């Protein structure tokens, strides 16, 4: 081959340019932001059947036909505490709607059931609290931590999702999505 060095250099140069373009495209992207998507958005919500604090059960079947807000939380994380007032205000505004349901799923390796019950009473959390000690529901929903909040339509599809602390306005928006989805 005549002038092999030129050909090799050309190939190397092309590879470097391609690599450079790829790196340049990614500069300024925050890789962490993208991991905050949830794969189940737009898909059917996973089935769950959990025991509640009051001793009964709550399942996805029992909530079918309603617009459901599911909030994963625990007793010790700071954003969970911070979002409590917003959740309470939201729940109070909609508790009497027949097509609305709200479930708080708690997965707490450290607190016992009685400690959770006491916390719920102290904080006056009026909505259904389900216990998920094995984190089965938490994993089924693809959660990465707490708090995470989901909105499920009456047809059982996940239409809204938020990681970290929710605000009242976001909760309202998620409920509208659930109700509006046909």
């Amino acid at each position, binding site marked *: 081959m005549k002038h092999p060095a030129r050909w090799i250099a050309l190939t190397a140069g092309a590879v470097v340019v391609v690599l450079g373009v790829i790196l340049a495209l990614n500069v300024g992207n925050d890789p962490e932001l993208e*991991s905050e998507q949830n*794969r*189940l958005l737009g898909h059917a919500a996973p089935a769950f059947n959990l025991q509640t604090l009051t001793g009964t059960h709550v399942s996805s079947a029992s909530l079918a036909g309603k617009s459901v807000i599911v909030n994963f939380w625990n007793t010790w994380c700071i954003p969970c505490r911070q979002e409590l007032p917003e959740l309470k205000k939201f729940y109070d505004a909609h508790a009497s709607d027949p097509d609305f349901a709200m479930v708080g799923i708690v997965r707490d390796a450290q607190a016992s059931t009685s400690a959770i019950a006491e916390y719920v009473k102290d904080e006056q959390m009026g909505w259904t609290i389900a216990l998920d000690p*094995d*984190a089965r529901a*938490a994993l089924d929903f*693809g959660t990465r*931590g707490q708090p995470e909040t989901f909105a499920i339509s009456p047809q059982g599809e996940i239409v809204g999702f938020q990681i970290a602390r929710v605000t009242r306005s976001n909760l309202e928006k998620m409920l509208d999505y659930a109700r509006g989805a046909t």
Partner: protein
Amino acid sequence: MRRYGPWIALFVVVGVVLAILLWPGGGQSAAARAHALASELKCQECQGLSVADSNAPTSVAIRADIKRRIARGQSDAQIRQVYVDRYGEQILLSPRGSGLGLIVWVLPVVAIALGAAGIWFALTRGRREPRLHASRADEVLVDRQRGAHT
């Protein structure tokens, strides 16, 4: 034969050892399977650690879930698929060998093979093309020397 004797014995010994190691023995224990699967999944709350190595709450929960699924009889591929469905392909620390992920597995092998081939050709080129022709520079040199002596 005497020259090669010790070497033949050496290869036999090494061969036996390798045969013992490669012999399909009893399958992995459940605990080993669980640990292997957990090291293939990325912790969702950490920076780059595997589920096996991290103590984040989700990782602890995933490890327990893997154990339950193995006890229920699910295969490794099934368990992996369950987690890919929930968390996306990014949860696999080792890209699957199909689709785009194939590139990372195949490309290095191809590159090293090409490099080895290139070296081989360079090595054998010396034998195949003996330099029998004088280059222009050589001719000039000879002429100069001739000119110097006449």
